[in-house]
């Protein structure tokens, strides 16, 4: 017969101070783990939500990123007439030749300089990215030295409000609008007219990449292959979704540091939990013996104490999650390993992250509770009753 759960709950309540302190210790470890997992989840989201499955990105053959690409503008008309491309609002093929450069902007809070991506695009570039919504001002006009900035660029850098001018390339650019890219990788970009930008960076006569909108995802796949297989072009087509999925590797340093930190902290917390559970067992020696006399079996005692430890860990996990919730959605940035520029993303405490946090805490509880519970179950009844 199993010992009722209420017995464990009551025991945890009885030794309030000890319970709270141990649970808090576990909570701290859980908080650290959640923080790191939320960072990675946010980064993942930024890249995964960036791609549109109908968009095909065209790069120079052999080039892995837009920044290291570059092909002759003369190839562009050939691209434009490939079959399978959707029509834009003017009835023309929906394609955009683009230039991507990285510029340095000082952070608003004065903590240094950051690389930011500037993307020059054709008017169709905006139609190709319906996920980016204008929230203030207007889009840039073709042929003007105008830029639209993402919401997060506006909040992180000075001179990025509507009406301000930004200095890069060969001079001043007027900020005319702010867009919201919904947490995607575009959230870290500044957009402007491709020809204006190319002349500022002496890149006329070429594009670093081109975006084609296929009529549907299946056509996108065919279009991608058509671009790659065309011997005249010497270009390579990639699905936009695949291109961004690859960039999630930028999170690798955070991931490795995170794993090391979480494991070390977890071992420390497990020892603390073990200490608490040993104390609980020692304190209740006579009680355990009595339970045994009453007919509760050794496995029942073992299970009960392991359960108590798991309960303690669960409390810690919940406290940790609650402590971290206010940070949900907090924005931060890291360097994108592919584009060399900063990618802005927000902390995402998803259900998955919470689940992992709980599993992580339970593992600590299990490790911390197993030995004391084993010790409790193996106690000699007579000695314990006398003690």
């Amino acid at each position, binding site marked *: 017969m199993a010992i009722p759960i209420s017995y464990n709950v009551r025991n945890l309540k009885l030794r309030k*101070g*000890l319970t709270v*302190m*141990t649970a*808090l*210790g576990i909570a*701290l*470890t859980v*908080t*650290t783990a959640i*923080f790191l997992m939320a960072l990675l989840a946010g980064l993942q989201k930024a890249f995964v939500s960036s791609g549109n499955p109908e968009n095909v990105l065209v790069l*120079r*053959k*052999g*080039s*892995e*990123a837009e*920044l*290291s690409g570059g092909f002759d503008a003369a190839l562009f008309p050939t691209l434009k007439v490939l079959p399978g491309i959707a029509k834009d609002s003017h009835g023309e093929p929906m394609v955009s030749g683009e230039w991507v*450069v*990285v*510029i*340095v902007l000082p952070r608003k809070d004065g*903590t*240094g*300089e*950051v*690389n930011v991506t500037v993307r020059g695009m054709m008017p169709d570039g905006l139609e190709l990215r319906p996920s980016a919504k204008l929230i203030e001002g207007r889009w840039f006009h073709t042929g003007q030295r105008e830029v639209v900035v993402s919401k997060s660029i506006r909040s992180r850098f000075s001179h990025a409000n509507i009406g301000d001018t930004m200095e*890069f390339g060969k001079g001043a650019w007027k900020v005319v609008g702010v867009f919201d890219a919904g947490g995607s990788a575009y959230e870290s970009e500044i957009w402007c007219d491709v020809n204006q930008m190319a002349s500022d960076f002496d890149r006329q006569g070429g594009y670093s990449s081109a975006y084609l909108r296929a009529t549907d995802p299946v056509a996108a796949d065919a279009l991608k292959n058509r671009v790659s297989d065309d011997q005249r072009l010497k270009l390579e087509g990639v699905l936009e979704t695949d291109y961004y999925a690859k960039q999630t590797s930028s999170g*690798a*340093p*955070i991931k490795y540091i995170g794993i090391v*930190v979480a494991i*070390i*902290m977890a*071992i*420390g*917390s497990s*020892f*603390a939990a*073990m*200490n*608490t559970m*040993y*104390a609980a067992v020692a304190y209740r020696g006579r009680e355990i013996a009595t339970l045994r006399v009453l007919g509760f079996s050794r496995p029942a005692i073992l299970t009960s104490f392991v359960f108590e430890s798991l309960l303690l860990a669960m409390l810690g996990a919940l406290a940790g999650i609650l402590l971290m919730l206010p940070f949900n959605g907090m924005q*931060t*940035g*890291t*360097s994108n390993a592919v584009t*060399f520029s*900063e990618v802005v993303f927000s902390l995402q405490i998803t259900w998955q992250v919470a689940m992992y946090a709980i599993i992580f805490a339970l593992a600590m509880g299990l490790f911390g509770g197993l030995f004391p519970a084993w010790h409790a179950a193996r106690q000699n009844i007579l000695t314990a009753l006398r003690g």
Partner: protein
Amino acid sequence: MTLSSFVVRNTFRNKRRSLLTMLSISFSLLLLTLMMSIWRTFYIDQGPPDSVKRIITRDRVSLAFFLPAYYRDKIRTVPGVVAVVPMTYFGNVYKDDRSTNSFAQVVTDPDEYPKVAADKIVPPDQLFAWQRDRTGAMVDIELAKKFGWKIGDHLTLQSPYFPVHPEVTIRAIYTIDPPVRSLIFNTKYLEESVDWFKGQAGWYLTEVASPSDVAPVSKAIDEMFRNAPQRTKTESQQAFQLSFVSSLGNVKAFILGICGAVVFAILLVSGNTMAMSIRARTREVAVLKTLGFTRPRVLSMFVGEAIALSMAGGALGVLGATLLIRWLTHSPVAIGVPAGMRVTVPTMLASLLVAATVGFVSGCLPAYNASRTNIVEGLRHIG
């Protein structure tokens, strides 16, 4: 029996509890020492003495833009400059995409490079061989060991930035402490195979005459190119390397956050143990007081116990961190760990100080409560 030995004996009376507490504290302090060492490497360490005379000039906008070759001769004219070499990052991929195979590959001018990298020790005959062979490469000894390379071996390189697969021959192996794990080959060789790269360089590495020249020379170089087609940004090698770290995000806040969590965690653990251990001894405290031990005496005994316990855990943690970092910096598996990272004596002392402070703070409240207990009630206490 002296008071101190009494404290030590009491500390380890309940062996299991003391051991668990010590282990728990030691893991937390291991992390703390690790974080402090990272902090030191990034923000305090000045790097090897030779590097304080090196400055780096790059495009003001981004490292992704190359600078024209003639900038080199212009930089040479700045007073205080000893030598200038062009440097370009070729890539870091070797064989496949796996990060364990990754190492830095750069191109430069082998003739002048030894003047700016005097801390890389190369046998003169090997250096000469490298300078004479345009397809020659110089590699770090650690790297050569890892891949089993010997002088004369041929390697085929690849790059995410250049559409070529140059074949290089290892002509020289250099030694440097700490190791930098890089492969260096001739910029002319790359220029010959990549048309658009002709007459360009990723950045310029300059050696100045003395450390005090770093600031004025950097300023003079940037001033010189103020109206040139490409403006430059010149900074010390240390600052240049730090800019990569800061691009990872708010590293400082990240490290401080972890340190804060760790310190708070050990405070909890240590406080918990002390509370448990003192509660179990209520009757003993009453006996001590009956024997004539004053309240401050009793208080200091318990606080001393808390400090002894956390210091023991701290020492263990520092030792662990030292071993871990030594392993990390010498392991071929751990890529991206700064080779200059080590646990210095000040870092160790700081960790121990944190441990002692935490012990002190955590012991205060339970000890104060114990010292206050009423003798008669304490003697009656059943625990």
